[in-house]
């Protein structure tokens, strides 16, 4: 099974080079997240005012910032935090929204009403403002950023899971499972859930990008991770002030990295669907 999955993954990648590029980028980001701190050439927190605002050079590939910290090291080290927040929030919303959507689509009735109202309520807010409000109210800690990012994505997951579940609720194999002795909850988790998994995984890959953007956005406006922790959003915020005076590298490199990460996860979505959907296997 796993070897055939691998073979299939290779086939999908060879068929679609964009997926290959996305996969390569993804691997690069994951490695950076894991190994970043040990690979960084400089201490990301060590300031050196003697070398402040140096343009990119052989010693400092991305240049240095206003208090002389090495931007390359900071961007590299920040990968773990940014990806970590995004991954945690996506996992959380996947569990909450996925289950709520499943139950809502499968049982209908008051469950559907309740879940629908909660999702509508969340959707009634401008989502980023809602995330700001949550973090502002609960305090800007990493767990709260994760929670806020998860909550604003909740309606999206509920909708996708619900729509996919409704489609399969009446499917023949659901009756077959009942005949085979499964209770409702067993049918829901054992039969319907695995079937909507491919689409949910694609959803996760797509929202991973938004989650990174959202976490960085919160930090950018000062409601997320606090300086001097290396984080892409803060770095862009700090660097923004220097663009007018010509020190473009301070904001550009963390910004470009952020953009590449979001881009990578969005591209990955299609490829992931091809890999996880068994019907595409030949």
């Amino acid at each position, binding site marked *: 099974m796993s070897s055939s999955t691998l073979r299939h993954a290779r086939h999908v990648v060879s068929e679609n080079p964009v997926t290959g590029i996305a996969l390569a980028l993804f691997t690069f980001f994951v490695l950076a997240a894991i190994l970043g701190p040990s690979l960084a050439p400089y201490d990301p927190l060590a300031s050196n005012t003697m070398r402040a605002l140096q343009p990119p050079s052989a010693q400092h590939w991305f240049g240095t910032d206003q208090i002389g910290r090495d931007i390359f090291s900071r961007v590299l080290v920040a990968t773990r935090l940014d990806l970590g927040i995004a991954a945690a929030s996506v996992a959380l919303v996947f569990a909450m929204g996925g289950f709520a959507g499943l139950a809502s689509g499968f049982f209908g009735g008051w469950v559907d009403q309740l879940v629908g109202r909660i999702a509508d309520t969340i959707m009634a807010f401008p989502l980023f403002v809602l995330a700001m409000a949550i973090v502002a109210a609960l305090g800007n800690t990493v767990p709260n950023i994760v929670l806020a990012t998860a909550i604003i994505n909740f309606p999206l997951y509920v909708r996708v899971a619900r729509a996919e579940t409704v489609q399969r609720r009446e*499917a*023949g*194999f659901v*009756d*077959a*499972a*009942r*005949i*085979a*002795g*499964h*209770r*409702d909850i*067993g049918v829901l988790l054992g*039969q319907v859930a*695995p*079937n909507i*998994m491919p689409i949910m995984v694609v959803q996760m890959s797509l929202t991973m990008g938004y989650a990174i953007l959202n976490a960085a956005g919160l930090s950018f406006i000062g409601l997320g991770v606090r300086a001097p922790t290396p984080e892409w959003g803060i770095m862009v915020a700090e660097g923004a002030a220097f663009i007018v005076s010509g020190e473009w590298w301070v904001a550009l490199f963390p910004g470009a990295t952020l953009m590449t990460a979001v881009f990578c996860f969005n591209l990955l979505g299609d490829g992931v669907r091809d890999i996880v959907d*068994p*019907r595409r*296997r030949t």
Partner: protein
Amino acid sequence: MIGNDPTPPGAAGSTLLDVAELSKRFPLRRGGFFGGGHTPMVHAVDDVSFTLARGETLGLVGESGCGKSTLVRLITRLTDPSSGSIRFGQRELAALPAKAFARDADRARIQIVFQDAGESINPRFTAADAIADPLRKLKGVTGADLKAKVEEAAALCGLPLELLDRFPHQLSGGQRARVGIARAIATRPDLLVLDEPTAALDVSVQVTILQLLVTLRETLGMSYVFVSHDLNVVRLLCDRVVVMYLGRIVEVGPASQVFANPLHPYTRGLVAAVPRLDGLRDDALRLAGDPRSPIDPDPNACRFHGRCPIGTDRCGTEMPALRRFAGGRQAACHYAEEPP
């Protein structure tokens, strides 16, 4: 007991399933503010009674919307009846909620082969997973024993063991049908409901599946309820046949006789409409028009009234009862006559 079984199978022949006065009504959604006291009801199955002997194959025929599917869901206990009784062996199942029946001891004894084998197998399951599912849940079989039982069921259904690792989309229509049958017989049910099992298959494959079903019935001693719109297939496979029209039984009897000499005008029209290879068509019996609405039908009028070629005013004011005729036959028509 109703009817004579043309071929009582040995020591069996006792009644396995006794359905009496079974009805299922679905409420239509209320019409907004003015819904008032009365909710319109769809009478999907209305006052249906029949029996099935052990080892017997009973055909169930009728047009789409006649209530066959609902009746199948009732006797397989996927839906709860509005009223009536479903006696299975010595046990009354009608009062047992469908939710509770999912884990009932008798769940393993009533199984079903679904119409579209492709759609009724979870696309994430391999053939082996699908066949193992009822064994695991209903019989608690695990491990090596499970593997052996799955392979045994597959072998009985002529499914090559090397196909067991495949997903449904990797199987041909005939192979999928075999997986669906293997899954249904894995728990050795007494009653197997076959819901148009060959509707999606080409004739050449259909033959092998029908012959397999006959072999399985003999080897495993099952009783079949066989639902089909193809009357030729029903005639080939079934001992007796039940003809339904708009939720009610209009005719019951030995399959060969019902098709050769129908008593009810609806059955006559139905049989006459089946295309024949010999081209001997009886255009005089053409049934025009559509069935009436199943929503709140007039309880005092024959459901076939208005479309019936021989109907009279009496049919509009008096619901014909299912009367008994010679040869174990029954028909619900005021004007049905004893078969010659």
